[in-house]
């Protein structure tokens, strides 16, 4: 698998200040495959995406995209790298002061010098691909959450990227919108042949569409495998995550530094 | 469509700005005679310039014809030398007289020019020889007080009679 890897993280460690987020993580995303990274909230999944897009830089290790180390790119190279990358943000992050049309046209206008008529055709094509042709004139505030997510997807694929990054694409959507987005992600990935990374904690929907799954916990890769392997995994940790149980290998309680008695000011035993 | 209305508004906005600046420079400020071809300078010596300041107006028959551009002390004769920059369209004869006047009782001081009868005009750099100094209020009051006191001492015995 590593011979055909498009994105590769090698022994990457990252910390915000003193707080370690990722420790010695290695993973690969093969060319043209859709890979999910799952884990609890705050497990460092989103940081992984930011490392790939170059928004944050690894303190140790290498982030290789198509053989190039993102951490060593000049800012010009980094912008070049980002131009072949599309990212779908958690809540879409549409530009609220631009119409739907201008939102989708934004990356095309910024990075190409195409005539307006061609931009119009491209935008309509992308909107058609997400099934929302006819909404060009609306403003983002007039869209439902699911529609905004699909417009954001159209914007992310406007320049036919080689890499797609999805940050929690299913959060806060009703089941129908969720199904639509999942279907679109799968369909677009197959049609465009992009290598895609999806960060999510929605297990069931993700397992239906992805090719490979990494589980991240405590800044490390806890488990990995194809969706089938994950479903039948014997690991109690994976089982807890897939079944959504409250307590298990992942503890319900936050690891407090004080005992409960101490926190309540009952000093008898500890003092 | 939406964009062109924004352009229109911004155009209007800039036009308002230009109009405002034009109003300020033409109607509010005095467009002082510009240095260069359309002005010429004269000098005038005064024994005492009182409170005359640089930029004070130079008037003839009440019309502003120029500005005082420089004031200095001539250390040979110990008189004040004022340099006047006048608009070229106003020419004055060689025997023109200059006096320092006050606008109102407490107003600003300015130089008044009174045209003479000489057929030749003053040229740039010439000096006005006929000058009269500023009235200094303290001196005026001083003179008035002395004359009042003198008058009073004459009147006093007369009144008692």
């Amino acid at each position, binding site marked *: 698998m590593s011979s055909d890897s498009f994105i590769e993280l090698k022994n990457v460690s990252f910390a915000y200040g003193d707080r370690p987020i990722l420790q010695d993580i290695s993973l690969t995303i093969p060319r043209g495959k859709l890979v999910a990274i799952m884990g609890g909230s705050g497990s460092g999944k989103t940081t992984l995406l930011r490392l790939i897009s170059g928004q944050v830089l690894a303190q140790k290790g290498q982030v290789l995209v198509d053989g190039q180390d993102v951490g060593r790119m000049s800012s010009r190279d980094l912008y070049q790298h980002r131009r072949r990358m599309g990212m779908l*943000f958690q809540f879409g992050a549409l*530009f609220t002061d631009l119409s739907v049309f201008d939102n989708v046209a934004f990356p095309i206008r910024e990075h190409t010098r195409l005539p307006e008529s061609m931009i119009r055709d491209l935008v309509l094509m992308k909107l058609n691909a997400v099934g929302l042709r006819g909404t060009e004139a609306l403003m983002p505030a007039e869209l439902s959450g699911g529609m905004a997510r699909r417009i954001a997807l159209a914007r992310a694929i406007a320049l036919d990227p080689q890499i797609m990054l999805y940050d929690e694409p299913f959060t806060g959507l009703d089941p129908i919108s969720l199904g639509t987005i999942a279907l679109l992600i799968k369909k677009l990935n197959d049609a465009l042949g992009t290598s895609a990374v999806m960060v999510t904690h929605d297990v069931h929907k993700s397992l239906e569409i992805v090719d490979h799954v990494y589980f991240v916990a405590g800044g490390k890769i806890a488990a990995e495998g194809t969706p089938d392997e994950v479903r039948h995994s014997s690991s109690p940790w994976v089982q807890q995550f897939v079944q959504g149980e409250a307590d298990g290998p992942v503890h319900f309680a936050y690891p407090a530094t004080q005992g409960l008695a101490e926190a309540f000011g009952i000093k008898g035993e500890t003092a | 469509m939406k964009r062109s209305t924004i352009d229109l508004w911004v155009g209007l906005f800039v036009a308002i700005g230009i109009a405002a600046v034009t109003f300020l420079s033409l109607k509010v400020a*005095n467009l002082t005679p510009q240095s260069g071809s359309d002005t010429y300078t004269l000098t005038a010596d005064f024994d005492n310039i009182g409170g005359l300041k640089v930029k004070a107006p130079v008037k003839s028959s009440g019309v502003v014809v120029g500005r005082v551009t420089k004031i200095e002390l001539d250390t040979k004769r110990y008189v004040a030398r004022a340099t006047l920059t006048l608009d070229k369209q106003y020419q004055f004869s060689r025997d023109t007289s200059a006096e320092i006047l006050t606008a109102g009782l407490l107003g600003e001081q300015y130089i008044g020019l009174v045209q003479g009868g000489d057929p030749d005009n003053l040229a740039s750099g010439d000096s006005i020889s006929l000058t009269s100094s500023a009235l200094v209020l303290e001196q005026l009051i001083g003179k008035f007080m002395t004359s009042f006191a003198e008058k009073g001492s004459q009147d006093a015995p007369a009144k008692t009679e």
Partner: protein
Amino acid sequence: MNALLNPIRRLGALSINAIWRLGFISRFFVAILLNSGQSLLRFRLTIREVYFAGVLSLIIIIVSGLFVGMVLGLQGYNTLARFGSADALGALVALSLLRELGPVLAALLFASRSGSAMTAEIGLMKATEQLEAMSVMAVNPIARVVAPRFWAGVISMPILAALFNVMGILGGYLVGVEMIGLDAGTFWSQMQNNVDLHYDVVNGLIKSLFFGMAVTLVAVFEGYDATPTAAGVSSATTRTVVTSALVILALDFVLTAFMF
């Protein structure tokens, strides 16, 4: 001991924080200047922001200017009349406006009307990940979002200040001539005799240009630096108005000392 040290410690932390922010804002200013190419080459971006910052401030500037001028006319007349020099009202109104009140009040109004709006807008764009989305799309948010707003502020401020001056002088005229009954000719001629184009008018406009730069720099910086939450954006907006007001007044003192 601690009770004594804590306030000192807090004061120290506060000053260090202030200096840290000063360094940050200077670096940000340089970044804006370096990334200004796009806002000049694609001037439409800047025009759009001139609309929001300048055109939409017209009403408040016109109305406030008129009222400030009317108050100046009334108060000035009352004071001048005591010394028998009510004729100088035109000069008083024009000079106070051109040198101080016009640039300063217009800048204060601009900071609370447009500066706070800029901060809130950029802060919300940050909170909703729009700035990050832009940067992931390989578009520099400083060049695309911040710099056009900055230049729009720099362009709008002198225009607004000039308009404020004109409205103020008209307000003074309304009160002095139309209401109190001074002679219109005296009003204007006193003004023209005492107002100098370069010394008063141009210097006032230069002042407003500096104020425009200071206010918009503070506004875009606070927006860009805002904590990306609702509370963070609201406190950044407050900081914009407070900091702008202080900067305007301090800068006014420095510029006045330099110019007049």
